[in-house]
């Protein structure tokens, strides 16, 4: 057998071993409930709870952003992100979080959002004909006393 064939076989074996090892690096998409059990870094997929407040007050702390998210089992959880608020999170259709559970809060290290793509956007901006006249300025306003 030629040297190159031997090396080839060795390399192919190495590559296969490598792929097996590599897939141990891969993760799973899970839920908040699982995250609570496992206490390790993982992915959680879900949607933003748009009814609750998204808390970001840079004046107090520019690196604290929190919001509520429903995971795929519709469990709601408070998510804390140490960083600036991602700008288009309100529009997101789906959120993929990377992070882990700390107490009852999910501490996200990364937030990935799926926003409605502009390609399949089904809205067309339309100029609206406005019949109502603008009210003119009135420089005095009587106030009862």
């Amino acid at each position, binding site marked *: 057998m030629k040297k190159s064939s031997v090396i080839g076989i060795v390399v192919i074996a190495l590559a296969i071993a490598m792929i097996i090892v590599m897939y141990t690096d891969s993760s799973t998409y899970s839920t908040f409930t699982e995250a609570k059990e496992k206490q390790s870094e993982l992915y959680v997929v879900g949607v933003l709870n748009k009814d609750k407040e998204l808390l970001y007050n840079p004046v107090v702390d520019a690196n604290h952003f929190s919001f509520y998210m429903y995971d795929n089992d519709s469990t709601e959880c408070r998510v804390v992100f140490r960083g600036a608020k991602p700008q288009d999170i309100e*529009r997101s259709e789906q959120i993929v979080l990377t992070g882990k559970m700390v107490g009852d809060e999910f501490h996200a290290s990364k937030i990935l959002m799926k926003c409605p793509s502009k390609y399949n956007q089904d809205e067309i901006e339309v*100029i609206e004909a406005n019949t109502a006249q603008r009210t003119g300025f009135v420089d005095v306003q009587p106030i009862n006393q």
Partner: protein
Amino acid sequence: MDIAYVGESLLPGQIGQFFVILSFGAALLSSISYYFGTTAEEDRSWLVIARASFWLNVVAVVGIGSCLFYIIYNHLFEYHYAWAHSSRSLPTHYIISSFWEGQEGSFWLWMFWQALLGMVLVFKAKSWERPVMAVVMLCQAVLGSMLIGVEVFGERVGSSPFILLREAMRAPIFSDPNYLGMIADGSGLNATLQNYWMVIHPPTLFLGFAAMIVPFAYAAAGLWQRRYNEWIRASIPWALFAVMVLGAGIIMGSFWAYEALNFGGFWAWDPVENASIIPWLTLIAGVHVMIAYKNSGHSYFAATLLAMVSFVLVIYASFLTRSGVLGETSVHSFTDLGLYWQLVVFIFIFLALMVYLLIARKKEMPSSKKEEDIYSREFWLFIGALVLVVACVQIIASTSIPVFNAVFGTKIAPPLDPVQHYNKWQAGFAVVIALLSAFTQFMKYKRTNSRKFYSAALASFVAALVVTGLVVYVTKVYVNFMYILLVFAATYTIVANGRILGEAIRGKWKLTGSAVSHIGFGLLLIGGLVAAATNEVISVNSSNYIAVAGFDQVEKPGDNLFLTEGEPVQMGDYRVTYVGDSIAPPNVYYKINYEKIDDETGRVTEHFQLRPFAQNNPQMGGLVGTPATKHYLTHDVYTLITAAMSTPHLQGQESEQTGFEAYDEPAVYETNIGDTLRYRNGYIVVEGINRNATVQNIPRKDDDIIVGLKLRIHAATGESYEAEPVFLIRGGTTFDLFKDVDEQGLRFRFSNIMPQKDKLELMVYQKPLPEKRWVVFKAIKFPYINFFWCGAIVMTIGFFMAIFSRSRTKPATQE
């Protein structure tokens, strides 16, 4: 019911659609004619048809581009493509980028380059023209089918760029014949794509992709025509060209990401980036074994396989980025245009062609009976190619996790931290590759004198060790053994190839290209490693700890710094001040001053202003930040706005508030004429009383008492204003009418007259101080990143030199 729409300009679309069909038909005819022209060589009529239809295809491709450009340039929003990718406010040079923002435009770009390359082949390929062009035009036909956009047996084939907006979408306004008058503007171009690099990065990248067909076609033609040896020689310059252009395109993309995207880096191992680097690496490997075969007769199968598989991987890359299969694993939002299966078919056509030819001709392939010598260049070139392929397998496997999920229905998530995951593997491969590209330079083909080899290799080894020590010390990467190893391997490459370059200049000109591109590769490795390993976020609040930057750069605690306008903050070596912003719609530029202050003298030793900007585009998802970077020779300071105060003065929210809630609690004064009252920004003089005051829309009755109080307001800035609030008694009831001085945020009420005290009651309302403007920003220092860019440029120059020397040394005996 058919509606007669008003104002649509349908002609350019119809012409364009005609060209689309023509380009597909002509390419197919050309491919078939070239095929029969090859098998029945004596019959020249096939060649005549093939060439004619090739030129027809060229005309059609140019026609498609012209029509599409006409539509976008003239803002014909009745076409979906123009509406979806451009807008009226877009500057002309970005109209070019919007041209290829969509998938259809980028397919067109690919076709256009392929047509140009086809022209070169028609003129220059001589005896190779027929078989090679048969393959190239087959690819052109498949690409053409991507733009057809017609239904065949209920399946939509292709996606036409000439589809009308009303055909693409369902909306009630399309029942109005005059719907065009209601469409204000297109959706515009994604803010991140409005960058100079986006004008030239996609064409370069696609030229690289398109050029990959040529080595594939030569390999296929060589196997098909049993011209086993000739094709390699003929296609080496083409392979080098493809590698050079694709490499330049990838680096441009990386530079664009660094300059214009908010990644905070130059390489993120995003699936889209990986998809473009995979075929590049395989063809790099291919070029090396092709050269090895040419010089030694070894590794024929590897050379053929790599030349062919690289193009199949180009199609696979298109599939990954265009089919929507990547889903949530990529930040790039690619949507499925319905081309999923068509792209799969595209892959399988060329994969099948490759597998068939390789199997059918396996027995006849030239193979060397003699075993390679360990001390031979061809042996190590082969090993190097193998390592590159294994490195590729790693990238393909990790990137293809979503594909794996789609095929097997599994739900495996990609690694949590992709950057770390890929770096961990690729750093190891890079070390091996760099070491190989160093010592293999001292090997000769067939057989090397081992004594000579060791003396040359060791001398460079020692020199590299010394240089490494220096580099590691200066760049401070000694924290990690792997970093040191990688720096050493890269330095060894530079030193060894530098030596070869020295010899080459003295005579062996042919090797200069190789030496230069390997030096570039070494520089690129060092620059990339140092910048990735030692970049640090400098916008850290003093209270927060600074994380030791590893290979990865995810959001760490306290990466963002809050700045209030006009208040300097000390940040590392710099004192930063947010000094305001300037608005150039649709962008807001935030001016941030950086000052370096000498501790002892307190003098400013260095001063510069960075103006990162953000585009507030609700359609694209709010604020989209674009970094600004200060470039030094040894490092870069990168600044990105991550949050900013919304700017109500732009949106006119303030005019909504006319009530008293917008003001602070009033100050009540009992005054007399001539009194002076203080307010926050100046003083007010009570000048007098106007007993004949009139009120505009309240007619004076006889028993009315209407008195105005004349006030003069002197602002600290020097301006003065007048105001006359009015007090009114009608039928025993008192009213008062307030007056505003908007410029000073003041409101006055003449609220009472107190005759018994001889006083006039004046109420002064002041608006609270406007909230100070602020920004939240992030600054990263990238040390020695210039090595990375510089290495990339040197590498490209090296490829160029190699193409030049290798196409010149082609023996004249070739037909």
